[in-house]
C-alpha cells in the first residue's frame, strides 16, 4: 500500500469529504466495470457500486473498514453483494438468445461474435462457485496479481493459484459441454 493511499485512508477514517471523494473517483469506474461484467446490466451495476460505497462508509463510521488494501476491501464488498444477488435469483440458462443478436446484423461479424462470446462466458461464470467466479474475474478480467487476489479473497497466494486452476477447468467443462449440446 503506497503512502499516498495510506494517507487517503487515514483521512477517510475521519470522514474527510475530499479524501472520500478521491476514493470514489479512483475506484467507482473500476467497480462499475467489474459489476457490469458480472451482472450484464448497467443499472444493477450502478446499484452495486452505490451499495459498495455506502457499506464502506458505514464501516468507517463504526470504526471498522479496511486497515490497508482499500481496493481489495471494495472489491470484496462488491463481490459479496453480487454473490448474494445470484443466491436469490438462480443463474439464467446457458443458452443465448440468438434472435437478439440478429437485430444487430448491421454490426461487423467479429463484433457480434465477441459480444456472444462475452455473454456466453458471463453466463457460464454464474455456474461456478462464488470463489471461482471471483478468482476468474480478478485474475483474467481485472488483471489482478495473485497477491492482490489473495488480499481481496483473504487467502494465501497458493490457495488462489489452485483455485484459479480449478476454476478454469470447470469453466472449460461448462463451455465445452454447452457447445456439445448445441
Amino acid at each position, binding site marked *: 500500500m503506497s503512502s499516498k493511499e495510506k494517507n487517503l485512508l487515514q483521512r477517510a477514517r475521519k*470522514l474527510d*469529504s475530499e479524501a*472520500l*471523494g478521491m476514493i*470514489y*473517483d479512483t475506484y*467507482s*469506474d473500476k467497480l*462499475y*466495470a467489474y459489476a*457490469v*461484467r458480472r451482472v450484464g446490466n*448497467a*443499472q444493477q451495476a*450502478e446499484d452495486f*457500486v*452505490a451499495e459498495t*460505497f*455506502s457499506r464502506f*462508509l*458505514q*464501516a468507517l*463510521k*463504526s*470504526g*471498522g*473498514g479496511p486497515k490497508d488494501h482499500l481496493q481489495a476491501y471494495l472489491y*470484496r*464488498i462488491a463481490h*459479496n*453483494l453480487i*454473490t*448474494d444477488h445470484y*443466491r436469490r435469483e438462480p443463474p439464467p440458462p446457458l443458452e443465448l438468445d440468438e434472435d437478439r443478436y440478429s437485430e444487430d446484423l448491421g454490426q461487423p461479424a467479429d463484433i457480434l*461474435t*465477441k*459480444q456472444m*462470446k*462475452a455473454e*456466453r*462466458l*458471463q453466463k*457460464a461464470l454464474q455456474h461456478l462457485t*462464488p470463489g471461482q467466479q471471483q478468482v*476468474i474475474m480478478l*485474475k*483474467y*478480467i481485472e*488483471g489482478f496479481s495473485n497477491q492482490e487476489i489473495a488480499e481481496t479473497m483473504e487467502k494465501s497466494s497458493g490457495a488462489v493459484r489452485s483455485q484459479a486452476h480449478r476454476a*478454469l477447468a470447470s*469453466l*472449460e467443462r461448462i*463451455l465445452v459441454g454447452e457447445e456439445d449440446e448445441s
Partner: protein
Amino acid sequence: MTNHNIQPELNKHLKALKEKVPQRDPEMAAKGRANFLSEVKELQAKKSTPRLAEIFAAIFSMSIQTNRRLATAVASILIAIVLTFGAVGGTVYASQDSLPNQTLYAVKTLTEDIRLRLAKQPEEKIRLLEMFAIRRVEELYTLSEKEGDFPQVTVTRLEQHTENMLILASVQEGKDLTQLLNQIRKSLQAQEEKIAILANTEHGNAVKELTQVQKKLREKIHLAEEGLDNPAAFRKKMRSTTPFTPVETLRPGKPEKTRTPENKRKPVDRGTPTWKGKPDQVGTPDHKGKPEEAGQPENKGKPKDPGKPDKKEKPNEPGPPDDKGKPEDPGPPDDKRGP
C-alpha cells in the same frame, strides 16, 4: 495476466468479456458520486454534534477570558443544568453508538424502549422499529469486524423488532395495512440482504448464527407477503401465533408494576386488550427471548405452522402469555376497552 496455459477458445471468451464494458452513463455516475458525498455529509453532521460537556467547556472558557465573576456565575448555572439534565442527556447521547458488550448499551436499548412507548401512532412505532432493526444489523456488522462475536441480545432484539412490526401492522385495515406491509417487507428485505452478505464473509459458528437470523427474517418477509395477498388470514395468523396486546393499548402510560402468577397465566381475551408489561431489563444478555412490547409466543424459535392453528387455542383467544416474558417497552396500563 498469464493466459499462456489457457485453451485458445476459452482465452477468446475471456478476452471478449474483458473488452465488454459498456460506457458508463456520465449522468448516472455523477448522481452516484453526489449521493455518496451527501451520505458522507450526513455522517459528518451526526458525528460533529457537540456533546454537552464540550458546550460547557467552550462557554466556560469564553467566560473566563472575559470576566472572572461572570465566569463563576456562568459556571454555577451550567453546573446546575448539567447536573440535572446534562449528565443524563450526555450519557444517553454517548450510549447511541455503544455495542452490546459495552456498559452503555443498556442505556441505548432503554432509550429505544422509551421512544417506542412514547410513539402514539402504529406507523410511528413501525418506523421506529425499522430504525432499531437497522441498528441491530449495524451492530452485528461492527461486532463481526471487531470481534466476530454475536451476543444473543442483539439477535433477540432484532427478532422482536421485526415481529412487532408485523403485529402492529396486523391491526390496520385496508390501504393502511397494504402500505405498512409493503414498507415492512421492503425494510426486512434490506436487512435480510445485509445479513446474507455478512454471513457470506464470516466463518465458523458466526455463519450458523447469521444463517439462523437470515432464516427468521425470511419468515417475517414471507408473513408480510402473505398479509398483502390475504389480509384476513394474515390477521388471524398474527393473532393465533402471538399473545399480543393490540396496538390500541400500546400507548404511553403507567406500566403495571407487578404481575401475580395468576394474572400471568390467565389467558388474555383478544377483544379486551390487556397490557401485562413491566419495564424490561434491556441490554442485559439474560433477557434472551423476552418480548419487546408484545409478548412472545411460548414456542419461540419454533413458529407454529401458520396454516395450522394450534388446536389447543380457541379462535380469538390466544394462549397464556409466556411466563418468562418481559416486554421491551414498559407499556401502558390495562386497557379494558374492546377493540
